[in-house]
């Protein structure tokens, strides 16, 4: 089975956020871009399926400019992906539909049975790439997916999709595009020999289709909340008094419940 995993370099989750000098975006200065969040889970999921299905390959794809995109592809190789393809853009693009179009053009010519994407990126949290890819490639697409399994005798995937109120169980044959929500608290980490091996593996580079730079969603401002002043501490002599004071504040001042 051919499994494609699309990943996006995102700021290390521990990054201290700062606005860029023009106030439009996150200041990338000194920020480390990594494979994280649901994308990390998508890679883990691809590798787990490969272990289960003989003859499978997991191919990683990342869109964007160097060095960020090739760097996280390198982490994908170190984790065990079979190949890596950099869909190269000259500048950072953060319009998810542009990203989907660029990836879709490349993936369209390399039929994968399963395309895995994180359900949303850790930074912009749009969650648009998986459904947009599905629509562009004319394949069924689902997001908020967990518990993905392959059943060889029926040649179908089974998985769950979470909605706000229920968890649906689905079955579907390939090809599919899935936005994963699964989070493993302990996804595999790259072992040193694999990190060294990954350094010598080639990363294929293909140019993004022309036109893939003119985004229709353009950043204007990046605002950080005023630092919270720290909690207002509630003074009390008995637990009942603490409770009574807090409830009064929540009703009358914060107005969070009637």
């Amino acid at each position, binding site marked *: 089975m051919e499994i494609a995993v699309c990943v996006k370099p995102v700021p290390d989750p521990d990054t201290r956020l700062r606005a860029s000098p023009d106030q439009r975006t996150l200041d990338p200065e000194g920020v480390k871009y990594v494979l994280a969040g649901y994308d990390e889970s998508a890679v883990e999921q691809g590798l787990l399926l490969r272990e289960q299905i003989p003859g499978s390959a997991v191919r990683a794809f990342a869109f964007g400019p160097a060095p960020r995109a090739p760097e996280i592809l390198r982490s994908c190789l170190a984790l065990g992906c079979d190949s890596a393809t950099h869909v190269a853009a000259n500048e950072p693009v953060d319009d998810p539909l542009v990203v989907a179009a660029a990836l879709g053009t490349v993936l369209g010519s390399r039929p994968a049975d399963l395309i895995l994407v994180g359900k949303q990126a850790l930074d912009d949290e749009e969650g648009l790439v998986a459904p947009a890819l599905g629509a562009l490639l004319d394949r069924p697409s689902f997001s908020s997916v967990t518990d993905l399994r392959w059943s060889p005798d029926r040649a179908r995937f089974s998985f769950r999709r979470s909605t706000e109120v229920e968890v649906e169980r689905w079955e579907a044959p390939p090809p599919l595009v899935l936005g994963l929500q699964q989070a493993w608290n302990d996804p595999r980490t790259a072992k040193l020999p694999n990190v060294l091996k990954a350094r010598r593996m080639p990363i294929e580079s293909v140019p993004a289709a022309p036109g893939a730079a003119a985004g229709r969603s353009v950043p204007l*401002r990046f605002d950080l909340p005023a630092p919270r002043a720290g909690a207002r501490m509630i003074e009390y002599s008995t637990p009942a008094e603490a409770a009574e004071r807090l409830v009064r504040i929540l009703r009358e001042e914060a107005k969070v419940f009637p």
Partner: protein
Amino acid sequence: MTPAILVIGELREDKPTDASREAAGVARRLVGDAPVMGLLIGSPVEPAAAGWCRDGVDTVRWLAEPPAGGRLAGALVPSLLALLSEGSIELVLLPSTGFGRELAGALAARWDAGAATGVTAITRTAEGWEVRRPVFGGRATETRILSGPRAVVALRPRSFPAPEPREAPAAAAVQAVVAPGPWAAGPTRIGSEPVVSGGGPALGDAPIVVAGGRGVGSSDQFRLIEELAGALDAAVGASRAVTDAGWRPASLQVGQTGRTVTPQLYIAVGISGAIQHVVGMIGSRVIVAINSDPSAPIFKVADYGIVGDLLQIVPALTAEIRRVRGR
């Protein structure tokens, strides 16, 4: 010229969801007196259409759901495209739910539109639709311009006021639109279960969340958290320390590897406030922390704090809330 807007609504128990009503109100505010087209996904129910008209839409269409009730965003797109060209629509508004986001992505890709999800404010400017949306788990907010001629905007539930009911125009003819499912032989929905929510409303959806951490002490004592949540009609959340210990299922985990929640009120009980937890709840409007350690980092992100033993404070709080709510 005033742009034409299509609002896509979701139904729950035969009524438009609150988020769908909010979207109708936003559309009304954006276009003034110009017509707003509404589309509900599901099987036609007249009272639902009439109620939604009072919220702001003028005409209501129905998009039939596939027989199995399984929603596939991509399968709905062809009918949506037909509808959009018919009404020369420039903006599609829909709730930023899981399915709403799937639909936004699939539709925008085929309609060649700009799109944004999780939007908490939208205005019309000379350059296009200006949208605001929390990013980085609520640690920052970005403002973007959707500058193309077409845009799809998914609105974050509970970020807009419930619309004031207006005199409903004589409910326009409710028309059915049939969705041809191009993948009829493909995916099949084989069942569903309600979200494991620790009792109350689902975590992703609740206006109030009460979350417990390692400080709660044991699986048994975690009932204190559930009782407080019950008194508040709140959802139950947990730190990873709790889900790792198996006191409660992983579906309740809030944080970097769990869910991101943005309720009106988040009460963190016996949670230290590690960054991996905080990123999942910092977007909440009001944060309350209860912790025995006055130097716990959670107090840096909380609005109100109580230093004390949760085993005493939480039952007192539950009792006080039951008292003021008269139950």
